[in-house]
C-alpha cells in the first residue's frame, strides 16, 4: 500500500493528558491503574480512569453532545495542538477533502445507563434532557468531533469492539487511496461505563488486581478509558527523512467464537501477515510489536502463538496495557500512538506489572524499557469480540 504521513498524533489515557505526560509515564514505567471507585460501581477490580473528565466542559454550541465519552474526546482533542493542526490541514486540502473515521465500542452508553435510573416512575419515560443521538449512538462521537474540528468530508464510526479504532486507520487509508479524500482524522474514544465493567465481569474476564499481560499468573483485563487521535495525510512523492508513516494494515476475522479468540491465533496471524505484505516488509524488518496483550489467559496464549509463528524467537514485543489498562474501542488508536512515540523517541516501552513471565512465550517479551537509536518499524495488534482482528505497521522514514 502507498504510505501515508502521520502528520500529528495525540493520546490521553490514565497515564497522561497528551504526549508529554504519556511519554514521561512510559519512560518511568508508571501504571495508571487504580482500585475502581468509578460512579456507583462495586466490583473488586482496577480501572484506568482519566482524571478530570467530569470537569471538562464542552463548547456551548456543542452542549447537546454532553456526556462522558464526548468530554473525554474533547479533552483528548485539545492536547498537543491537534485541533489547530486539523484546521490547518482542512485549510490546505479543503474541509471536504478531510475525512473523519473514529472507533468506539460503547460511545455515550453511560448517559443511557444514568437515564434508566432517572425514568419517570409512573410512565417509565426517560428524562426529557436525555439526547440519544448526541450521546448514546456510536455516531455521536464523530458528529461531535466533526463539528468541533470543522471537518466536512466523509464521516464514519467503526464499532468492532476492541479493534474499532485500529480499523479506523485502515478504512481511512482506503478512502485516501480511492481518491475520495486527501487527509483523515482517525482515532478512538471509549470511556468507562457500567455495561463494560459489569459485562466483562459477567464473562469472568476482569482481574481483581492490575492486569499483568503475558504473566504466567495473569488473570484478566483491567478496563480503562482513552482518547487517541492521528492526522493522516497523503504523502508527497518523496517523504522527507524522519517522517512518521502508516505503511501497512491487515484485517481478518477469526470465524471461531464470539468472545474467545481462535486458540492458535489463526486470525491474528492472518492480520499480521497481511499488514506486513501491505507494507512490503518481511517479519525480520519489524523492530517492535505492541501486542494486544489484554492479560486474559486465552488472549495472550493465542496472540503469543501467532506472534512467534510469524516472527520467530528474536522479535521484541510488549503489551502496554499493564500501564494504560484495556481501553477497548480506543485501544487500537492509543497503541498506534504508543508505537509513534516509540519510533519518535527511539525507545521500546516495557510491560508494566508483568512479574513472572509466561514460560511458553516464544519471543523477546520486554519487561523493561529498551533504547534503540535504530528503531524504524513497529507493528501494533488489536483484536476484538466477534473475532475482529487488525494489525497496523508504522515506520519512521530513513
Amino acid at each position, binding site marked *: 500500500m502507498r504510505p501515508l504521513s502521520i502528520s500529528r498524533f495525540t493520546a490521553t489515557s490514565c497515564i497522561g493528558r497528551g504526549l508529554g505526560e504519556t511519554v514521561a509515564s512510559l519512560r518511568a514505567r508508571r501504571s495508571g491503574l487504580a482500585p475502581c471507585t468509578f460512579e456507583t460501581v462495586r466490583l473488586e477490580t482496577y480501572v484506568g480512569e482519566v482524571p478530570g473528565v467530569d470537569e471538562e466542559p464542552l463548547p456551548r454550541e456543542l452542549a447537546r453532545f454532553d456526556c462522558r465519552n464526548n468530554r473525554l474526546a474533547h479533552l483528548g482533542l485539545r492536547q498537543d495542538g491537534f485541533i489547530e493542526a486539523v484546521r490547518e490541514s482542512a485549510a490546505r486540502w479543503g474541509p471536504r477533502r478531510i475525512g473523519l473515521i473514529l472507533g468506539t465500542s460503547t460511545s455515550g452508553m453511560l448517559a443511557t445507563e444514568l437515564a434508566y435510573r432517572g425514568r419517570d416512575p409512573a410512565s417509565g419515560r426517560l428524562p426529557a434532557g436525555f439526547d440519544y443521538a448526541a450521546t448514546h449512538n456510536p455516531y455521536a462521537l464523530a458528529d461531535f468531533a466533526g463539528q468541533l474540528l470543522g471537518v466536512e468530508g466523509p464521516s464514519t464510526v467503526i464499532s468492532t469492539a476492541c479493534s474499532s479504532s485500529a480499523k479506523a486507520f485502515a478504512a481511512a487509508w482506503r478512502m485516501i487511496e480511492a481518491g475520495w479524500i486527501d487527509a483523515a482524522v482517525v482515532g478512538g474514544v471509549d470511556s468507562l461505563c457500567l455495561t463494560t465493567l459489569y459485562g466483562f465481569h459477567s464473562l469472568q474476564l476482569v482481574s481483581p488486581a492490575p492486569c499483568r499481560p503475558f504473566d504466567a499468573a495473569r488473570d484478566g483485563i483491567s478496563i480503562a478509558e482513552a482518547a487517541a487521535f492521528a492526522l493522516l495525510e497523503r504523502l508527497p512523492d518523496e517523504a522527507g527523512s524522519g517522517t512518521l508513516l502508516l505503511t501497512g494494515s491487515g484485517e481478518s476475522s477469526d470465524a471461531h467464537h*464470539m468472545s474467545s479468540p481462535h486458540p492458535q491465533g489463526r486470525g491474528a496471524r492472518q492480520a499480521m501477515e497481511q499488514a506486513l505484505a501491505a507494507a512490503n516488509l518481511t517479519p525480520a524488518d519489524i523492530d517492535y510489536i505492541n501486542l494486544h496483550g489484554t492479560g486474559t489467559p486465552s488472549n495472550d496464549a493465542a496472540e503469543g502463538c501467532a506472534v512467534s509463528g510469524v516472527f520467530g524467537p528474536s522479535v521484541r514485543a510488549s503489551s502496554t496495557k499493564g500501564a494504560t489498562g484495556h481501553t477497548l474501542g480506543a485501544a487500537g488508536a492509543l497503541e498506534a500512538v504508543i508505537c509513534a512515540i516509540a519510533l519518535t523517541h527511539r525507545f521500546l516501552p516495557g510491560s508494566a506489572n508483568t512479574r513472572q513471565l509466561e514460560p511458553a512465550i516464544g519471543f523477546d517479551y520486554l519487561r523493561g524499557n529498551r533504547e534503540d537509536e535504530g528503531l524504524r518499524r513497529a507493528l501494533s495488534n488489536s483484536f476484538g469480540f466477534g473475532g475482529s482482528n487488525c494489525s497496523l505497521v508504522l515506520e519512521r522514514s530513513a
Partner: protein
Amino acid sequence: MSGIAHPRRAPPLSAYVRGVGLLGPGLADWHSGAPVIAGNAPYHPCPTVLPAPQSLPAAERRRTGATVKLAIGVAQQAVAGAAIDPASLAAVFTSSSGDGLICHEICETLATDDRQISPTRFHNSVHNAAAGYWSIATGATAASSAICGYDASFAAGLIEALTQIAVSGAPALLSAYETPYPEPLRAKRPIPDSFGAALVLALAPGETSLARITAALTDAPCDRMPDAGLEALRAGVPAARCLPLLRLLARREPGRVVIDYLSRQRLAVEVCECR
C-alpha cells in the same frame, strides 16, 4: 505540501451488483419484494417476520437476537442470489444501533441494585455481533467491519464497501439493517419496524449481475419513494434509506438516484448496464 498533484473531486466508485437481499415490513424477500419496490405491485405493510439463521450452529442460533437474524438473513439472500461462496467475501455490516432489545435489557438490569447482566447478552450487545456471527456461520476469515453513521448508516456502509472493493479488487458483501428499540428508548429513537437490505458487490460483472452502480458525493437533495408507504419506510428506518437505489435495481432501469448521507452531502448513485 502545496505542490502535490491530487484529485480535487472524489473520483466515482463503481461496482457490479451481483446479488440483493431484502427484508422488511410487507417485504418478505428480494424475489417477492422487488415488484413492490419497482411500483409494479401494491405495497401492503405488515410486521416484519425474521427468519432463523439456518447456517449457524444450533448453539449459536439459540443465542442470537433479532438484529443478528435480520443482518444474516438479508446477507444470505444476497449471497445466494450472487451464487458466490460467502467464505470468500469481505463483509461490511452497517446500522445506526446495535440490538435495541439487548441494550434495553442491560440498561434495565444496571438500573437495579443487582446489576448482574448475562454474559451472552453482553457479548451480543456489541455493534459487530452480526459481523461476528456471520463469519462464524460462513467460515469467512476475510476482513469484516461494523460501522455506524446514525441516519447516514446505509450510505456510509456503501462507501466503505465500495472503497474496499476499489482498493482490494475483491468482492464484498454489504448488509444494512435496523431493528426497533422497545420503550422507553423507542420514544427517543423511534424506528417503526425491522428492515434490512444486502448487496453483493464486485468489480467484475458475473452471470447474476443486476446492474453496475457508480457512487459520487453530491450537494443535491435525496430522492424519495413515489409510494407513500414505502416513503414512510425510507424516512423512518436508516437502513431503508437505500430504497430509491433498490427501486432502480428492481425496475432494471438505468438512471441516477440521490440517497441520504450526511446533512452536508448526499450520495449520488448511477445505475447502468441493467439486466
